[in-house]
């Protein structure tokens, strides 16, 4: 093996070890096992993994492989994995190892290739682990023999392209300063919607039209939507629809679906794509690799001059620019700092919570603008507008400005300093939780008061929804050590809630549509306590044992 291959192999192996030894990977794997058990209910249950119309799909290997691979490809690979792997270069910068790496004979292209293959190896291993768990579920809940090769082929067909795509794009985003910031995280979320969801309907229509016209698929007539369907949802759904003669109007449902037990079960065969489509997908997959040239060109190779310039550029996003413009506003907070001293001087707990909230406004002057803007809008807008869009915007502000409230000191290495403050160590979780929640309530102060008179149930939902988001910010933040998980999770929740348009009361977590029943409100309050317990456990694990 020549030196270049030796170096690439070392980078891949080290990345793989580092990721697999993280507690979060173990948590993820346990979550996958739980999800597998929950998502494939017993055939006698009143809901199922996959249904066609009102009929349940038989639990055979092709059906379970297809349904679980699609779910995993869309959410696991397409979305979550991006946020999991888009920190491999940053890790080398933050850990300080990058300085040492830069002075070795390792070439930049070897580093980028190693990181890319490390991403592919990690995601492939994760996919295989998930697939094995699902194969195990066939032996537990299956109604037909386990066919391992069907699983392998189906997962390869649906997931492989997404693995390559996310592995490349995460590296490209990470090396381009502006895209490596939170703005990049948000942009990727939009990319995921565009590439994951958009091609589905289009492919279904094209496929149906061609089927009716009797046009055979060839390499020359592969629809564009099939090329951009990098997470495999559109192509595999259209293939199954073709097989069972269904379309979206007849209701092919993957995930938790209700069904009529009186109807005979539908037997799904292995997903098969036209050869032309498979070739097209393979070509697109290979086509991602040249994009690594962008990552290579943008890679700073830990040069302090370029890193400094990168840091400057990554701050040149809209939020940071706004923050810079509004910086003078943060001086207003000095008045309140003085008030904390004089009014709350003797009350330690209240003073600390107030200081935490004030620190958010001092660090993020844009939060002051959000506070004023949302409350002024809350005064002048009619009640329906207060409910939507002002309440969702207040929730978004809460997520954005409190995402790092539980971890900012840890990220800056000043945890010990903070925990030495009287009462802080014992009440850390409660202080952070209250600070985040009260911060959220200040964004929605006027809307809450108006809703309390006009629609009390909605006001209660909004307050509980904000409590839920605050608990997530603290619990998830402390458990994972990053703000990304909360941002991604919240974006998915917001997306689902807005898309359901109030039809599904369980998704109306903050009362935006007024459809949340008391049971839903209680459910989110209990879930919030669960996240608080998670945060408390993680905090105790890190500090309490010392």
């Amino acid at each position, binding site marked *: 093996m020549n030196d270049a291959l030796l170096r690439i192999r070392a980078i891949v192996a*080290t990345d793989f*070890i580092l990721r697999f030894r993280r507690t979060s990977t173990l948590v993820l794997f346990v979550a996958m096992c739980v999800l597998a058990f929950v998502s494939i209910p017993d055939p006698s249950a009143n809901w199922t993994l996959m249904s066609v119309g009102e009929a349940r799909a038989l639990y055979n290997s092709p059906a379970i492989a297809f349904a679980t691979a699609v779910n995993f490809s869309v959410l696991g690979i397409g979305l979550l994995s991006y946020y999991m792997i888009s920190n491999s270069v940053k890790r080398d910068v933050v*850990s300080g*190892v990058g*300085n040492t790496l830069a*002075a070795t004979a390792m070439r930049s292209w070897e580093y980028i290739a190693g990181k890319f293959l490390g991403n592919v190896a990690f995601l492939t291993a994760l996919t295989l682990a998930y697939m094995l768990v699902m194969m195990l579920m066939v032996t537990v809940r299956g109604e037909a023999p386990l066919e391992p090769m069907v699983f392998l082929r189906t997962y390869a067909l649906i997931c492989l392209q997404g693995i390559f795509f996310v592995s490349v794009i995460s590296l490209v985003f990470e090396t381009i300063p502006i895209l490596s910031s939170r703005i990049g995280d948000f942009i990727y979320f939009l990319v995921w919607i565009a590439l994951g969801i958009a091609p589905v309907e289009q492919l279904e229509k094209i496929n149906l039209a061609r089927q009716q016209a009797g046009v055979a698929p060839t390499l020359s007539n592969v629809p564009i939507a099939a090329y951009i369907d990098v997470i495999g949802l559109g192509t595999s759904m259209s293939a199954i629809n073709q097989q069972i003669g269904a379309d979206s109007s007849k209701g092919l449902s993957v995930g938790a679906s209700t069904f009529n037990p009186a109807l005979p079960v539908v037997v799904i065969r292995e997903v098969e794509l036209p050869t032309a489509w498979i070739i097209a997908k393979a070509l697109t997959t290979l086509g991602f690799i040249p994009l690594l040239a962008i990552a290579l060109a943008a890679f700073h190779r830990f040069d302090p*001059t*370029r890193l*400094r*310039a990168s840091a400057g550029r990554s701050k040149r996003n809209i939020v940071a620019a706004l923050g810079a413009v509004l910086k003078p506003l943060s001086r207003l907070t000095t008045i309140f700092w003085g008030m904390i001293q004089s009014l709350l001087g003797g009350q330690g707990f209240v003073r600390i919570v107030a200081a935490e909230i004030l620190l958010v406004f001092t660090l993020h002057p844009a939060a002051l603008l959000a506070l004023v803007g949302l409350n002024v809008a809350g005064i002048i807008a009619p009640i329906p507008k207060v409910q939507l869009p002002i309440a969702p915007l207040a929730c978004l502000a809460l997520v954005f400005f409190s995402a790092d409230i539980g971890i900012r000191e840890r990220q800056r290495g000043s945890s010990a300093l903070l925990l030495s403050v009287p009462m802080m160590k014992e009440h850390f979780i409660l202080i952070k939780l209250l600070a985040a929640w009260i911060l959220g309530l200040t964004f929605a102060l006027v809307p809450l008061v108006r809703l309390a008179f006009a629609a009390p149930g909605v006001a209660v939902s909004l307050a509980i929804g904000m409590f839920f988001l605050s608990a997530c910010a603290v619990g998830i933040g402390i458990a994972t050590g990053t703000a990304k998980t909360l941002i991604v999770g919240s974006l998915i929740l917001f997306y689902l809630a807005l898309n359901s348009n109030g039809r599904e009361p369980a998704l109306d977590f903050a009362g935006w549509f007024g459809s949340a029943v008391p049971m839903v409100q209680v459910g989110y309050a209990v879930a919030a306590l669960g996240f608080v317990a998670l945060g408390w456990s993680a905090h105790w694990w890190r500090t309490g044992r010392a």
Partner: protein
Amino acid sequence: MLVLDSVTKRFSSGVTAVNALSLRLDKGVVGLLGPNGAGKTTLIQMITTVTKPSAGTIFYNDVDIVKSPDAMRSRLGFLPQDFDVYDNLTAFEFLSYFAALKGVRSKARVGELLEMVNLHTVANRVASAFSGGMKQRLGIAQALINDPDVLIVDEPTAGLDPEERIRLRNILSEIGGEKLVILSTHIVSDIEAIATHIAIMAQSRLQAYSTPEELLRSAEGSVWKGIVSSESFDSLRSQIRISGAVRKPDGVHISVVSAHKPFEGAAQTEPTLEDAFLFTLQKAGADTRAEPTTGKRDKAGAL
């Protein structure tokens, strides 16, 4: 042979970290001394090819390493100032990783180096849980793993206990017999026993480059010592720069680096290397009040 010619590093902010520095270095231990912010780390980053100079050239064995950095990287061992390790990798794995990056294929070499820095008994422990001194020793091991021709260590004694410091100095001294070792520090005692040459940087420029003996000679007649009362010491401290002071029963024993007799009763004395360093900085017009520090004086209770 490492030749730097008019090397300059200017940041986009307008700050010049290194200004037109020229130097020729051959084998031996070169102590790179200078106060914080003098430009030492930036100079080292340019020599190690981590960053490129804004102007000037750096040649190693007649190869321009700004244009062909691999010529230096393949023969380099580097311990940066803020060296750290990954979470969750053992010392053995971490060192094996760098061995692979540097093209070292022998696993025995990894074990050999761990033994050399006295980490062989904890080779399978996660390195991020190591103390600062242990991490620094692991850093030294990774710098030496490829048996480098040029070894560059930036502030290597940070976090090391006295025994480890001596051990490190011995290692560097031994390597310096055949190869080029550049040791950057602001602690004079780190280099006074082992440096064959000393380069002093201040205010982004090279202020002196000579052997320790020449440097000591340059400060002859400029170092004064004397005993003063505590009251006089307090007033003297505001008038002149005192390079060393130790309280004793008969008064405060002070030493001063100055071209003229600094106070009544002061007597000329032999300069130490630290005095010579301070003298060079004074000539350069650099602020010497906070720098440098020595282990010996710290322990003796410097004021």
